């Protein structure tokens, strides 16, 4: 099975103490490792204003993690833990490996095309400046 890449974001209640958030993060990390996954990155975005009320809160503490795993049922387990936890009010898992593959393919295509023929860079005004003199010459002739 190929490796899958997931983005996991969850929001805790705004008044949650720091150690509780750390506890949740470590719980997630442990259960991920148990099920054969690997947490690559953990970011805490801090308290941010929510776009709409969630569980009667207008703000929330955002935590963002990147998970890499070869098994797909790990997500079910992680989301179950988040659902059970009281402090977490919202969570979302997004699968990203297909998007990244497509992104890399586009980058490769572009590099290959750029190396195949010498192109002028896209954002130079030089072609525009060359055009009027050419038009003037043809008009004059």
């Amino acid at each position, binding site marked *: 099975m190929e490796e899958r890449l997931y983005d996991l*974001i969850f*929001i805790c209640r705004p008044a949650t103490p720091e150690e509780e958030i750390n506890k949740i993060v470590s719980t997630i990390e442990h259960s991920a490792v148990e099920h054969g996954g690997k947490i690559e990155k953990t970011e805490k975005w801090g308290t941010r204003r929510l*776009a*709409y009320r969630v569980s009667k809160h207008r703000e929330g503490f955002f935590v963002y993690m990147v998970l890499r795993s070869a098994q797909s049922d790990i997500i079910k387990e992680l989301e179950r833990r988040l659902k059970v936890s009281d402090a977490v009010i919202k969570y*979302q898992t*997004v699968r990203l490996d297909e*998007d990244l593959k*497509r992104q890399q393919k586009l980058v490769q295509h*572009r590099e290959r095309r750029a190396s195949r023929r010498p192109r002028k860079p896209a954002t130079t005004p030089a072609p525009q400046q060359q055009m009027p003199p050419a038009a003037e010459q043809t008009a004059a002739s």
Partner: protein
Amino acid sequence: MSDESVKPSTESPAATHAPSAPRSEGAPSGGGGGHRSEGHSGGGGPRREGYSGGGGGGQRREGGGPGGPGGGPGGPRRGGKRQYFRKKKVCRFCVERVDFIDYKKAEMLQPFVQERGKILPRRMTGTCSRHQRWLGEAIKRARNIALLPFATEL
């Protein structure tokens, strides 16, 4: 449509449509249709307009439907309420060569969302179809995680 005979008055709905559409040749007077139906009486005039209304309107719709060459948005679609030429808008993402629209960056997605929270159509923002699809996906993901609103009240 080389029908030269004078049709019965069942064509009157078509004739009434023609003057309502604001086109240059859609003059309700017999003089406008007069140059087409030269040999015919005035009774044939409005019906000529009806036919040309059908033909002209159909052509116009085809031109505005696919959005024009190069994906030019902001095109005239609604019966000529806007001007006939379309403003040349470039897809912002194509210019910057963006390959991945990140749903986590709400400030990047904000310009493509109305004040009420609705996603702006392509013809307003000038985005190309591919990036508009990616943009829609990213906005919906951001909405799910409360980074963008679903709907705001004005």
